[in-house]
């Protein structure tokens, strides 16, 4: 019986990674959910928007690094973030003008916008590869760990380590702050309310004197910021590679939907549901049980419910179950 070690094992391989991954998904899902909530379509280009913003951050980070500018223990990329956000905002605003506005004026059905966003996705996708190439890029620097497994073991003299990475810490804090800010903004400020009004009933918003173009611009600005932040944090934690960002789209959408589309709190909850279901259901409990059981005993098998081959299948199955009981997500989302 060794509760401490059991807990440490669990924390190191399940809790910490899942919380960090969940937060990464959540910030991404916030962008998706916001576009869905206000502009009323599922934006397939979001993954590539993230990639674009991050790409700019990467480039600027390299430039900073080459000039010897650093941020101490924190990653230099944080300094480059504003530039990335600005560039990303410029990109999405240009895209909106050139592409989406036309369909808004046509009052096109959401599904048309979905398909259009796929066109945008293709274009952004190539843009990013065109500029920075399809390869993996590294731009992380600064202190990598808040707590590393090795140090932890040395410090405590325990058999099991615990790792907490700097980026994980930043990600979780950012996620919490961003959601709170967004929630406050949408529900308490005049501009935020006008955005919700616009999404609810465009004609009536017009009749209330709300300027729809302004709402759209603000939405895109926030989305650009969220996408760049999400992309950068993810890239710092793992690595930057355009294709991976495209692949992120799926878990991000799953998070946004399981949480309830259009709801910022839902995005957070959804991110954690997806992350935890990926990590826990396929976890092999062997080690944990060995610590919990009597001294010297260890289970024969891995005590794994399903093999990791099925981790996506499992997270989708859990998503399905959630939706069966809560048809519009955990937080009562919208549907168009």
């Amino acid at each position, binding site marked *: 019986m060794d509760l401490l070690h059991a807990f440490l094992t669990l924390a190191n391989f399940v809790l910490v990674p899942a919380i960090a991954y969940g937060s990464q998904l959540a910030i991404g899902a916030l962008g998706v959910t916001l576009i869905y909530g206000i502009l009323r379509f599922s934006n397939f280009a979001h993954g590539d928007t993230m990639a674009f913003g991050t790409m700019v951050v990467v480039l600027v980070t390299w430039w900073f690094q080459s000039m010897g500018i650093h941020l101490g223990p924190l990653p230099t990329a944080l300094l480059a973030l504003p530039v990335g956000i600005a560039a990303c905002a410029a990109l999405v605003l240009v895209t909106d003008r050139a592409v989406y506005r036309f369909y808004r004026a046509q009052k096109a059905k959401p*599904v048309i916008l979905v*398909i*259009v966003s796929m066109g945008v*996705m293709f274009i952004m996708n190539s843009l990013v590869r*065109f500029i920075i190439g399809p390869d993996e890029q590294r731009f992380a620097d600064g202190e990598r760990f808040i707590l590393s497994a090795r140090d932890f073991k040395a410090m405590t003299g325990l058999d099991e380590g615990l790792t907490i990475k700097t980026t994980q810490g930043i990600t979780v804090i950012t996620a919490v702050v961003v959601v709170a800010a967004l929630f406050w903004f949408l529900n308490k400020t005049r501009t935020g309310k006008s955005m919700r009004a616009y999404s609810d009933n465009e004609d009536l918003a017009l009749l209330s004197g709300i300027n729809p173009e302004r709402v759209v611009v603000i939405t895109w600005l926030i989305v650009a910021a969220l996408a760049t932040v999400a992309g950068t944090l993810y890239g710092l934690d793992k690595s930057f590679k355009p294709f991976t960002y495209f692949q992120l789209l799926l878990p991000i959408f799953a998070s946004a939907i399981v949480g309830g589309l259009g709801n910022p709190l839902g995005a957070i909850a959804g991110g954690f549901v997806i992350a935890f279901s990926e990590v826990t259901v396929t976890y092999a409990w062997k080690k944990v049980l060995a610590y919990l059981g009597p001294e010297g005993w260890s289970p024969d098998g891995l005590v794994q419910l399903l093999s990791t081959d099925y981790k*996506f299948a499992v997270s989708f199955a859990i998503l399905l179950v959630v939706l069966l009981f809560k*048809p519009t997500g955990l937080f009562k989302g919208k549907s168009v």
Partner: protein
Amino acid sequence: MSDTGKKIGLFAIVGGLILLTGVMQSWNSALLILNMGLISAIMALGVNLQWGFAGLFNVGVMGFVALGGLAAVLVSSSPIPEAWSAGGFQIIGALVLGLAVIVAAAVLYKKMPKGIARTLALLALLIVGFVVYRAVFDPAVEAVEAINPAAAGNIGGLGLPVLLAWPVGGLLAAGAAWVIGKTALGLRSDYLAIATLGIAEIIIAVMKNEDWLARGVKNVIGLPRPVPYEVDLQNSASFVERAASLGMDPTTASTLWVKGLYAVLFTVVLLIILWMAQMALHSPWGRMMRAIRDNETAAEAMGKDVTRRHLQIFILGSAVCGIAGAMMTTLDGQLTPGTYNPLRFTFLIWVMVIVGGSGNNLGAVLGGFLIWFLWVQVEPMGLWVMQTITSGMSDGPLKNHLLDSAAHMRLLTMGVVLLAVLRFSPRGLIPEK
């Protein structure tokens, strides 16, 4: 009248594009595009049935297409008796057992009164069921997969003619659609979408990881064909003679002949499905479906059983996708579960439907051909664009960079074309009236 004119014109344009491919590139390329275009058109019809007729946002097309492919393997590849004796029957037994547990759980859920007792009983049943299932299933799978893993390791198929796989693929997809529909059709719009997407991913995960079924990611290659092999034709004296009399060399003649035969088969299937869809759409049944799509609450109040109808059309549309999937695997001659990705097998089909004009069968067919044509042809187009751009440039890193990026032009071109078409006619090329 001008409406029909427009339709004919659009189909003529797409036909012209394919002919142009024949003239400019090669007739083989043209026929290949035509064949995959036919299959794509059928898939698009399936999606259009669900979305255009009933407003069901099914983003699980990939799963049904893959099931069709699975059917092709299970029907046509040769049986492996060793595998059956090693554990094939036990696997089937295990699956039946698993099903029984689920059914028992469902019955239990219905029969017992709500409360702690029910939850506990249910949990116990499921856990015990799962453990027993795994205990029967796992060793059997291991035994089967151990048999010649490099070339087999699966239970094989029935060794029946591959054409039979097409309807079977439809049935398999329909069966899956029934299960999915029973559980998930209560969801709306994007929630249904992600649910179906998830189910498709689950189907693919199973196909990738259950090697005993169809070799998983190790792929099944060399599936039998409904048409002769080119090589055989090239070796057949009579064929070579006939080719020569037409002034063709035997290789070209044989490849064209085989593709032509496929084209005929696919066209027949497409026409049958198209006819059925058209008849259904322009009938009280289609009217009822449109009513349901417009306003479910009102349709329900007017005596239409919305749930049942949704299920019906979900099954039909999925079956059509399954048939197309089986046809595609037949054409490829192999099943490679790793190639099923949502972008290509779900979203591209959606692009076809929307660009063609949702709610309109002819539109879906047109979209199927056009988008497939583009998907294939944007590659040389992108390359050509890059070469044109760089032709005036002096050699240097920029030129190299641009030429290296040529391959990415493919997606860029696709995006540009897609946006252009949708800008030019935002409701699709042949909009629903």
